[in-house]
């Protein structure tokens, strides 16, 4: 037993709470990400239901203006940073090593660090509700409304510090995933044999690596403005509020693709397996995904068509935005091509995947519509945009995540989710989602602006608002059914087997759930669909050698310690220098111990 710096030793436990706190196993980390993300998804959902309840009738009295602003701001922040991204990160963690035939990610302890920082950041952001009020300036935090002059509560400081913390976690994770995918592929898995899901994760990782630093700079400037009285964004003292919008959307638009590309990847895994035929146009889908990633950096100002950009930027950003519809269209056609000529097994994961195609298409169409600046003059900041973004993020990202949950739950838990409950839940969610979000198109066309906590009765907006509110309760019901399904499933014996769907990718070539070392023998990859190739060519799984020594990284306390230090630095930056100093000491101690920790 080696000791690091005399005090800390290796964590030893395999079970119990301490084993989870010190784990560096990508599967455990992925599971915690997924569960935490789902809990935040339900919190964000409750915020949405509260917002919808307030808007059910004209002149509603359920929430006052201030609470309404906090709820819609936190709904967006929660869903984007604490629900969709972490649930995606859960899948990335769990399935990158399994799908590329590796035993873990490249930097297992960094992986644990990103998890703990994420959890700390999520708790920090939500604690604002109890500490003087949550952020209330929108997830976009437009200057100068976010300045100390116009946002006097600590809410927007929580926003700055919370997003900086979460950004740190995401940046660490993205680097880790990118390195893992590039370096740790099993023998024979060339880049063009990567599963599409992994390709999409790689694109997402690069989107985040390139866009998060921009947001970080913007947030630091906002922090300086709010806390130290600088004036980057305050026009009264020579700053420019439009600068913030550019900085925010250079991050914010790639972020949209960060949210949707993983689900595109999941659907590209589920559809071929359930159709029992290879993905149609693999390279077209991969290149289209990469093209979306690249173009995604050139469209940010379409969020700013109404700010007075001038004709040239409007034309350029309008053209680039319309152009992004082309790779998106290619993807949709290729998914349909995958279904064509198949023998499609309609399990719950298939329902969610097919619904993804239909609903994401609606969001894509409306997105191309307001790529036209004159049209955007009407759509911008109206409910039409609310409808659009929810068709992309609920109809797209969330439907894809549910497809992934049903598809991969057997691998993660060894148990099949109940298909009957799954299909009932799917239909309720499908109906609820369309009831909630389709009428918002009509509301937007009827001139209803976003982010208003109240509206008058004589504007003709009452009917569709009521329908949308009923829809939101319908969605909540379907989520509850899913939770019941999971609880019910976890109480039964393991019944999934290694490969319940007849999968094509490597994660199905190991037990469910997989052993700590993932594969007894690292598989050799001979085709884009390795398991189908081996099946069709009668190649048996490699035998396990008699003395199979597999070295796995030991558990570690240090990620937790560094994360605690980072959290205290964050808290200290809002409270007192001494807390910040303590955090810095703890973080440095953690990094030191980490560096000296023996790795065998």
């Amino acid at each position: 037993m080696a000791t690091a710096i005399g005090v800390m030793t290796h964590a030893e436990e395999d079970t119990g709470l301490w084993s989870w706190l010190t784990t560096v196993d990508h599967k455990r980390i992925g599971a915690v990400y997924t569960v935490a993300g789902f809990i935040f998804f339900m919190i964000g959902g409750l915020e949405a239901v509260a917002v919808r309840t307030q808007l059910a009738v004209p002149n509603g009295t359920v929430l006052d203006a201030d609470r309404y602003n906090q709820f819609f701001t936190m709904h967006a922040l929660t869903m984007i940073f604490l629900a969709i991204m972490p649930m995606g990160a859960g899948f990335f963690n769990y399935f990158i090593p399994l799908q590329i035939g590796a035993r873990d990610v490249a930097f297992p302890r960094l992986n644990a660090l990103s998890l703990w920082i994420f959890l700390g950041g999520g708790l920090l952001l939500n604690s604002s509700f109890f500490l003087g009020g949550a952020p209330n300036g929108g997830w976009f935090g437009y200057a100068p409304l976010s300045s100390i002059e116009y946002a006097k509560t600590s809410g927007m400081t929580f926003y700055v510090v919370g997003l900086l913390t979460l950004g740190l976690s995401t940046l660490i994770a993205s680097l880790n995933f990118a390195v893992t995918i590039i370096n740790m592929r099993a023998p024979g898995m060339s880049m063009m044999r990567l599963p599409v899901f992994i390709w999409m994760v790689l694109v997402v990782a690069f989107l985040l690596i390139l866009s998060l630093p921009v947001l970080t700079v913007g947030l630091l400037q906002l922090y300086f403005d709010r806390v130290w009285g600088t004036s980057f964004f305050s026009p009264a003292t020579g700053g420019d509020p439009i600068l913030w919008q550019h900085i925010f959307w250079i991050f914010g638009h790639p972020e949209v693709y960060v949210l949707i590309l993983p689900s595109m990847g999941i659907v590209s895994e589920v559809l071929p397996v359930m159709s029992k035929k290879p993905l149609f146009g693999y390279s077209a889908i991969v290149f289209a995904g990469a093209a979306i990633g690249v173009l995604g950096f050139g469209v940010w100002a379409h969020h700013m068509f109404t700010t007075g950009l001038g004709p040239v930027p409007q034309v350029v950003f309008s053209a680039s935005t319309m152009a992004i519809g082309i790779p998106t269209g290619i993807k949709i056609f290729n998914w349909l091509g995958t279904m064509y000529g198949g023998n499609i097994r309609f399990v719950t994961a298939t329902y969610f995947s097919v619904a993804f195609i239909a609903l994401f298409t609606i969001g894509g169409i409306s997105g191309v519509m307001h790529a036209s600046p004159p049209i955007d003059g009407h759509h911008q900041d109206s409910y039409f945009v609310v409808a659009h973004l929810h068709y992309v993020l609920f109809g797209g990202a969330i439907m894809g995540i549910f497809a992934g949950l049903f598809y991969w739950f057997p691998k993660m838990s060894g148990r099949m989710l109940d298909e009957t409950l799954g299909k009932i839940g799917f239909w309720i969610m499908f109906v609820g989602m369309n009831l909630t979000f389709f009428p918002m198109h009509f509301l937007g066309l009827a001139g209803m602006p976003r982010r208003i906590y109240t509206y008058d009765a004589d504007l003709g907006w009452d009917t569709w608002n009521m329908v949308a509110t009923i829809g939101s309760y319908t969605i909540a019901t379907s989520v509850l059914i899913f939770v019941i399904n999971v609880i019910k499933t976890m109480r039964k014996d393991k019944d999934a087997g290694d490969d319940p769907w007849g999968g094509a990718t490597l994660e199905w070539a190991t037990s469910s759930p997989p052993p700590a070392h993932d594969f007894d023998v690292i598989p050799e990859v001979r085709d884009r669909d390795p398991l189908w190739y081996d099946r069709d060519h009668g190649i048996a799984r490699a035998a396990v050698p008699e003395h199979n020594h597999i070295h796995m990284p030991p558990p570690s306390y240090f990620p937790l310690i560094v994360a605690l230090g980072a959290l205290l630095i964050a808290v200290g930056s809002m409270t007192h220098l001494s807390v910040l100093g303590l955090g810095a000491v703890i973080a440095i101690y953690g990094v030191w111990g980490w560096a000296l920790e023996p790795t065998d």
Partner: protein
Amino acid sequence: MGGSRPGRMIAIIASLVVTGVVTFLIYLAFAESLDAVRQPMTTFVPKSDNAELVHGVYKLIFWLAGAVFVGIMALTLAFSLMYRERPGQEARQFHGNSRLEVVWTLIPVLLVVAMAVPTFSTMSVLTKPAPEGALQVIAIGHQWWWEFQYPELGITTANELHLPVNRPVSVTLKSVDVIHSFWVPQLSGKIDNVPGHENHLWFTPTEARAEPYLAQCAEFCGLSHANMRFRVFVSETPAFETWAKAVKTDRVAPSADLAKAGEQQFTTSGCIACHTVQGNPTAAGKIGPNLTHFASRTTLASGTLDRTPENVRKWLSNPPAVKPGSLMPNLNLSPEALDKLVAYLDGLK
């Protein structure tokens, strides 16, 4: 159905029927939201030249969007029915088709070009400077009300913009605090009021009418964003000129005792610090709306209340209760003071 050739036909027909019915129902619901009487803030009934121009592109893009929607829905549904799992059916193994990839890359390219050309030609008109002789208006966003200045006419008003029909109006957009957005759906798309910047838009209203065009701030601007409404009255030129002349005059000096006492109260309660009443030399504040012709407006509190004496009293007795966050504080006015102020304000025709 599905496996055999006639089965496939049935699947295709069923998909088309379902898609058709769904699309028709959506169209009906959509058509409902175009009625300017029931939905006075509709974006689909243009009443200005530029709004009409935008509407042309708008319709084209809606039709294109509808066609794509129908096509993808019908295909998704048809493939789901035709190729769902059946005993004895084998999935056909193929990896793709280069010719098809080219075709369906070209389809979105063509759609995008079909959108882009009319979009850019419309923008070339919208972003031109306003025509010579346009009426100049400065629209200033405040938390949470609108100030309208007519620099050529030397008048200032609040929350109710009056325009003559068939004369171009050039609106300069400014803000004194945070970002707001000027949006009169029937007359023009929105442009933001950005502090430290000056934005412009122009349009020519084409229909004079008694009812106002309803409008509302479109950019989230804080606590009472929802309560930052305004109205645009478009009238025939003589009526507009009469209005402009009336608004330029000083306030009608109060004659009744109560109203006279009200003018006194207006000073003692500190109203003058924020509000201008031309002709009342003590009242020259610039922070709040100009109240010289308050009683000629149809609403108060930024379009959220009809201007009745009861509502004026309700507003004065506790402004933040009507408009959360209102910069006008609760002055804890006595009932007598309220009586006087209501009478005074009611006389400011």
